[in-house]
């Protein structure tokens, strides 16, 4: 088990003939992901390392049974690519592209709701169920299969946390990059619900940051969870009103502060690490407890 993607996931890469798309298609293939097709309008008929390239996602679904898509196309074409994937019948769409207009993201999410499709991103490093399926741009050598689910708003920081966990002997069931934008397809609470249901996942790590209210919503949900949750939040030192790299990482009009998030999470029983590398020891503590309580 794992969440969202696993060994049955068949990936189509949209934008496969671009630099990013071709590089990461090969990386995913090398990792063992079932990359069954690529799409690049007007370039149907080509091949990339044996991966057939089509003009439409529809063909990739019809001919190759693709059930997940990953999007590498430039921001101005990303909306159309995402709508195409959603319409074509895949169940997961991972949008790597950054700087997608906010209104486009809103529209994509509305269409995904209508069609019952799970969107990861935009502006995400992707999703990986170690040992089963990698869809995205993350350096996969840092992950190992195991009992910890990770959901993160930021990429590199989640690598830091995942590497620390792997180094401490805690592999991951699935690592989900929610994306750094304000409007994303999966928020902490959505992913927490899935981890709570997943038998393989024994505990969850949230890698959050200032801005928005995703951490506060997560805290509400955690109160009813049976699995332990650990968090690290970035942005304690960030001044209000300054966008810290991510569109979503901004303390605007007094909302989304570091303090409100820590308070909400700690109030829900979440152990909040004060530095990224502390996450591993907190996971050790809480998973130790879980294992003990399971043994009773």
């Amino acid at each position, binding site marked *: 088990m794992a969440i969202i993607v696993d060994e049955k996931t068949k990936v189509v890469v949209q934008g496969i003939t671009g630099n990013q798309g071709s590089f990461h298609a090969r990386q995913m293939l090398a990792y063992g992901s079932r990359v069954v097709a690529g799409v690049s309008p007007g370039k149907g008929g080509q091949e990339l390392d044996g991966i057939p390239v089509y003009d439409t996602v529809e063909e990739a679904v019809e001919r190759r049974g693709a059930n997940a898509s990953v999007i590498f196309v430039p*921001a*101005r074409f990303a909306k159309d690519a995402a709508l195409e994937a959603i319409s074509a019948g895949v169940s997961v769409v991972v949008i790597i592209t*950054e*700087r*997608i*207009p*906010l*209104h*486009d*993201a*809103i*529209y994509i*999410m*509305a*269409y995904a709701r209508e069609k019952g499709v799970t969107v990861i991103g935009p502006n995400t490093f992707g999703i990986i169920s170690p040992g089963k399926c990698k869809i995205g*741009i*993350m*350096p996969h050598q*840092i992950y190992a299969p195991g009992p910890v689910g990770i959901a*993160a*708003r*930021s*990429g*590199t*920081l*989640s*690598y*830091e946390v995942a*590497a620390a966990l792997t180094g401490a002997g805690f592999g991951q069931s699935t690592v989900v990059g929610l994306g*750094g934008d*304000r*409007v994303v397809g999966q*928020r902490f609470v959505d992913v927490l619900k899935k981890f709570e249901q997943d038998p393989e996942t024994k505990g969850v790590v949230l*890698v959050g*940051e*200032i801005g*928005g*209210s995703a951490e506060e*919503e997560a805290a509400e949900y955690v109160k009813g969870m049976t699995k332990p949750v650990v968090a*690290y939040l*970035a*942005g*304690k*030192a*960030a*001044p209000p009103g*300054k*966008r*810290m*790299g*991510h569109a*979503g*990482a901004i303390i605007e*009009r*007094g*909302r989304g502060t570091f303090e409100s998030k820590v308070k909400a999470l700690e109030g829900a029983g979440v152990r909040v690490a*004060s*530095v*990224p*590398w502390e996450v591993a020891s907190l996971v050790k503590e809480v998973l130790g407890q879980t294992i003990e309580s399971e043994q009773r």
Partner: protein
Amino acid sequence: MKLYEYLAKDIMSKFGIPVPRGSAADDPAEVERIAASIGGEVVVKAQALVGGRGKAGGIKFASSPAEAREIAEGMLGSELKGVKVEKVLIEEKLKIDKEVYVGIAVDTRKARPVLIASGSGGMEIEEVPEKEIVRRLIEPPWGLEAFMGREITRRLGLNGPVGGKVADIIMKLYHVFTRCDAELTEINPLVISDGNVVAADARLNVDDDALYRHPELPRVEEGTPTELRVKSMGLSYVELDGDIAVMANGAGMAMATLDVLQRYGGRPANFLDAGGGASVEPMAEAIGILLSTKPKAILVNIFGGITRCDDVARALIKVKETVGFPVPVVIRLVGTNEEEGVSLLRQHGFEAYRTMDEATRAVVEAAGRANPWQ
């Protein structure tokens, strides 16, 4: 991109929303002419992208063109909440029977636009009690329909012809929101005056990521010259008030680096996200810019994913061999191509740490020494 009030009003006016008679100027003589052409009492409003302008002295009334000029002379070039005032907006003074608030923002939780209205206009909406606020999620792709404007107006307790006018303005504000790719647009207050309804203040923040499809919109750049320069390179950069320059790859990593730095008593001078797979040249240029801010030390914190450690090493070497490093540079370098990167650095006299913890402690210590810039 936040637009100045006068620009936001220009746009709203083009969409059919009534705004007060008036005009913006950057010169006191012009202010006097504008005030004279409006006639009667006017209001002079500092054009600065700060909240709470009124309380900070950025909104003043004048009963004559000469007084308007005098006020403008005081405002123009002065600082309002730390921001230099370069223009003032001169408008007719409105008689106010009632003020309401209407705004459209994005509810990020619901991934939908949300229309917010309140009978308590003039206040920041955050300060209005929730029960006095009318909220309506706007369902894409359906959007806002005329009847919804009427429903909201009714909930505000407005009816008759004024209710109709407010409902109409709500629809037009929605058009501004969608057609300008807005993140946020507000009229606060929307003034009801003798049966007329006028947008007395206006806010319009446009999504930076959508600007490419809005050549028709004016451009307003916010930030220090250095921030604008780094932004133009496609990197994220924020100036802070400390003395340790920070470069990291990835926004979350950069924020975490600032946090850890602060935890160990260091004071970050800035935030530079050089991630996203930037190549050697722009990274070297970005490091040069960090140096130009004259920090006491530089911390480079890289967890290589798309960013390759050897590229980071090459960028550092390039800077060392061209402009040189007059301040200590502390490097943490792990991840993709780590060995090659670390080895390159060693060959050029740099040392690299393996953990954030060590590197952060080291840079704080280094910055604690005498300031090399003095």
